[in-house]
């Protein structure tokens, strides 16, 4: 199975061969790693690589994967070649639609104040909406210029994490 891995600004070509028993051979940019693996639970692995022992936790189990290893946390985007092509196209489309922005609640919270109305012009950095969680207010800002197209919530409303709040185009 071939993947393109993106981590920070780094990109790797990955080839995972069918495992033999407990041994995976993973080729990464031409270098082959021989990994003795053991699945401890759904989300935890014990990996032995040339004797070096790694306990690895898959903190987020869909791409971009979040991987914990020896106290470090890494976000790893893994794409098949087809997904990579699709992403490139989508990226172009998104770029073409210039600044369509969806502002979502970063965590479960309560809408404290709407700072804009439908039709308002906003610039990059302008405050759009204020949400509150754990007694802290959090002002969500526009990443770029645009016009407020939709407001999906009311003041005082409680929303879950990821809930759509405002659409700006």
């Amino acid at each position: 199975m071939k993947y393109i891995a993106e981590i920070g600004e780094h990109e790797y070509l990955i080839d995972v061969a069918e495992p033999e028993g407990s041994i995976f051979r993973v080729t990464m940019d031409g270098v082959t790693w021989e990994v003795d693996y053991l699945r401890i639970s759904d989300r935890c692995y014990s990996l032995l690589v040339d004797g070096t022992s790694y306990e690895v936790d898959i903190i987020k189990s869909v791409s971009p994967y979040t991987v914990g290893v020896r106290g470090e946390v890494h976000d790893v985007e893994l794409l098949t070649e087809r997904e990579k092509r699709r992403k490139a196209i989508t990226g172009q489309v998104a770029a073409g639609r210039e600044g369509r922005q969806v502002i979502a609640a970063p965590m479960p919270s309560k809408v404290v104040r709407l700072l804009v109305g439908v039709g308002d012009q906003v610039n990059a950095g302008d405050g759009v909406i204020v949400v509150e969680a754990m007694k802290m207010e959090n002002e969500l800002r526009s990443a770029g210029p645009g016009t407020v197209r939709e407001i999906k919530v009311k003041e005082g409303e409680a929303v879950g994490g990821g809930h759509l709040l405002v659409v700006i185009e």
Partner: protein
Amino acid sequence: MFRKILIANRGEIALRVIRACREMGIGTVAIYSDADRSALYVRKADEAYHVGPSPSAESYLRVDRILDVARQSEAEAIHPGYGFLAENPTFAEACEQAGLVFIGPSSETLSLCGSKTASRRLAKQVGVPTVPGTDQNLRDEEILQRAQEIGFPLLIKAAAGGGGKGMRIVGEEVELQSAIRAARSEGLSSFGDDAIFVEKYLTRPRHIEMQILADAAGNTVYLGERECSLQRRHQKVVEEAPSPFMTPDLRRQMGEAAVALAKGCRYQNAGTAEFLVDADRNFYFLEINARLQVEHPVTELTTGIDLVKSQIRIAGGESLGFRQEEIQRRGHAIECRIYAEDPTNRFAPFPGKITLYRPPGAPGIRDDSGVYEGFEVPMYYDPLISKLVAWGKDRPEALSRMRQALQDYLIAGIKTTVSFLCEVMSDPRFVAGDMDTTFIDTFLQQEDRGEPRHRDVAVVAAAIHAYLTERERKPAATPVSGGVAGSEWRLAARQQGLRRGW
């Protein structure tokens, strides 16, 4: 001793009090809001009663409902924890009137400690220094005169000010006139009030506090200090005992000051006197926290005294049972507060469901946590989810244990401050014990946080996981081995087959 205690709080501190009660053979009554039905402390209490919807004002702050539950469950005393109603004189009085013992100081003492003016007056009476200055409105001439007495640098503050507005640091006398004008004008434009006052400006002070215990007979002792200089938004993030800055002489002075303050307000139960300490080891009283502190475990680990059980015993009328000179401190303890906050997004609160939870455990490690895997951290309350505490025979040992424990602490599903605390624990200034209340802000401005070392392994692991996940989706494919599940015989056979013999 009490037969049953109601805990008027939630989260880790409710659990902490429940544990103390269980050890003492005292029954426990928990209260919970809608959001806390699934909380760990509700399961661990002997009894638990619903007191209202999620917002605190409708549940944990509802004195009437809490007293109803106390009556219904026949509790004899109420432990308020910290926060919520812990320092509320009205609540303490309501308990007293309902025939319940409030585990804390009297309502009169709470009133005094809650008033900045009364506290300063108390300090003056018992001869404990406060930050020199005045909170009264002063005329320009008065300010010029007081500035001479206080000395420079000093602070001009708008009486109605806040959040840094209407505040001016004055380094030398020549700057004074213009600073007065600026502060008055900013006060007027921002708050509609040009009243100002002066206060001594402490350059990079330390925040050090002194724990005291006082019984009903007036026996009052200090248990040593806690260094709490590491703060963000006036919220403590790391505390330790003893302070690396402390000297035996200063400890005795501050301890005796704390005892004098406590005696001066007829303090009963556990309390903490907070001080600022400048680079020359002058200390200035700030206020008394008239309750159990969040960071009480570092004192427990160094003195061996259980503060919660002491609180309950004192409230039950028992005497302290030990004298000042019998208190022995040993080793060093550090506490890291684990908050549900996103360090990569200006520490924005991050409630949500904990999908993986693996707390550390090792010699010298104590984890006062209120959560578990599967728990939904509510958005309504303080983001503190756990207090990780490390004890060592000295500061380096405590630090090395804390570093390992933080590295082992796995919390997924929400963002937490674990990785941020990991970095703080390795900061050279922190390791040297060189800190003050500006430490965290300075630390956060540093860009260089070191290169990750295990990026490649993370990529390989993600690839293996993706491969296996894909295979599971197509169950027709050859089964993939390597799971823990299944007989160990098969495992052994497989591995023997794979390895070349010795």
